[in-house]
């Protein structure tokens, strides 16, 4: 599903530049649930942004579902993001003047799905994350965990090939974190490919594979026995 080859990225800051990703290689198959770990500043978010086409690598190859991702203009990148990817952010990033349902329906709006279908689908995904009753509430009427579940529903709404989650539990307490991970595991059980950036060991072990980044290189890439989050909920 995802193939990266010798990926490099540096940030220029004035005269000097900071080499953040120093030649990464890995591949992720369909249906995997991968945790990306590493200490702060190791380049996890940078990698995820490149995979999410929000940022571009300086060199190296990136193939997503057989499509080479390079030299994208903004219009094309937007289209690919909409079609291929779902994002889950640490700070939820819901649009605060739109209801939960409208937030979930947003990616479908950009696909020009008619309103009625859009709303049906949004309700469907909201009930999957257990928030059907909250469909018409605004984000600031929801708890952190509920917001993240709305965000997950939104990421799922367009039925993307890959879900990218950058510290999805970073702003949540451990109980809520496990609820969110339970949800992510269930989505993965349905066959969806998911990447989760985290620096929490317990969260990482709820995935099926852990990729360890350190100073811009992969120092470890191992399969793990998945810990089911449901037992903590």
């Amino acid at each position, binding site marked *: 599903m995802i193939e990266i080859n010798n990926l490099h990225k540096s940030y220029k800051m004035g005269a000097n530049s900071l080499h953040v990703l120093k030649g990464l290689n890995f591949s992720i198959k369909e249906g995997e649930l991968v945790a990306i770990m590493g200490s702060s500043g190791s380049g996890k978010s940078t990698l995820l942004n490149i995979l999410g086409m*929000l940022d571009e690598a300086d060199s190296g190859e990136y193939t997503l579902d057989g499509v080479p991702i390079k030299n994208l203009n*903004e219009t094309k990148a*937007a*289209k690919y993001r909409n079609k291929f990817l779902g994002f889950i952010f640490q700070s939820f990033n819901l649009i605060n003047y739109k209801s939960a349902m409208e937030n979930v329906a*947003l990616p479908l709006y950009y696909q020009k799905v008619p309103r009625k279908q859009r709303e049906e689908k949004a309700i469907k995904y909201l009930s999957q994350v257990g928030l059907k009753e909250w469909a018409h509430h605004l984000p600031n009427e929801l708890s952190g965990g509920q917001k993240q579940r709305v965000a997950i529903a939104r990421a799922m709404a367009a039925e993307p090939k890959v879900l990218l989650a950058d510290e999805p539990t970073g702003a949540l307490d451990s109980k809520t974190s496990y609820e969110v991970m339970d949800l992510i595991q269930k989505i993965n059980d349905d066959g969806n490919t998911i990447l989760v950036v985290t620096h929490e060991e317990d969260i990482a072990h709820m995935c099926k594979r852990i990729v360890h980044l350190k100073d811009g290189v992969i120092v470890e890439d191992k399969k793990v026995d998945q810990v089911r989050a449901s037992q903590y909920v």
Partner: protein
Amino acid sequence: MFNKDRWKEILEVLTSNWFRTVLTAFGVFWGIFILIILLSAGKGLENGIMKDFGDIATNTMFMWSRATTKSYKGLPKGRSFIFKTDDVSSIRENVPDLRFISPRNQLGGFGGANNVVRGLRTGAYNVYGDYPEIIRQDPMSITAGRFLNYSDIEEKRKVAVIGEGVVGGLYDKGEEVLGTYIKVQGVNFMVVGTYKKKSNGGDGEEGQKEIFVPFTSFSQAFNRGNDVGWMAITANDGTSITEIKNNIMAVVKENHKVHPDDQRAVGHFDLYEQFQRVQSLFGALRFVAYFVGILVLLSGVIGVSNIMLIVVKERTKEIGIRRALGEDPWSIKLQILMESIFLTIISGMAGISFGALFIYLINTILDMNGPVDMFANPSVSLGVVIGALIILIVSGLLAGFIPAQSAIKVRPIEALRTE
């Protein structure tokens, strides 16, 4: 582009901060309001002054003789001369494109002594010896009887057409006027018609106190021989009297052995030139109205642009999220542009409506208090309104352009990072 969701979003954004939206809209509102008011005031002035011109054929000049100021062909300067009836025919022969050439003679005048008597009543009136065409050059409406005709001219009938003002001065109320006689400097004329002039100018009263008699009978009754006091000459439509007046004056100078370069020997008043001058004044007024109005509007538009920039700035994060979710940058740009155009047009329409209401009120007040000098019926044409709308759409586009550009300038990743 015009789907329901887009409009919902526009309304959501604009109503999320009412106070700011109204304040922003006010700039454009005020600009258009001022523009409409200025244009309609200009139109009111124009209507008022045009009314003073009345129905007078404006392509007309008046011409009279004065003393010469140059000696010529053995004749001394300072010599007086008088137009003759022959001058009329030689002008007609030598100058093409003339519609009317009316020789005129005149008795009395403003503030003159009493010259007209009827029974025990007397009055001081202007008495003109005229050809029938004069009614086409200085229009009046016949309120009873008829105007002069060519039989009157040929048979030198002692008939007169008198103004309503003369009727008021010489007759009792309700008294029969037609067929009665008035005595002008001792000569009896029978009244065959009465008239009323439409002109609302300052000399409106004076205009109703005139007496018209046939040119030929006038000459005979008051011993003018072939003399012509002055002439009213109108050119054909399509030819301006201003262009050919020198040819006309050259003819009479030639006839009376006046030096061709003697500028003062023939006096004239060119109505067309005056008319043109007034017209160009209105052109200038219109220009000023547009200039001021558009400048005020421009400051309103800059206000809109400024607020839109702030709105975009505030929404940086949101725009970042939407782009991460796959919204086309063009769609975002369109959204900002439409917000700006919508705001501009709504406030502009309000300005136009209030302007129209204001004009309506002014007109009502004018109607209630009777006519005012040099000002009548201020109004704006549909063309101006449509023009204003086009200006609004363009300004809305301009106002939204920079903010729209800046909305997609920030890369989504940077937009997401801002908190």
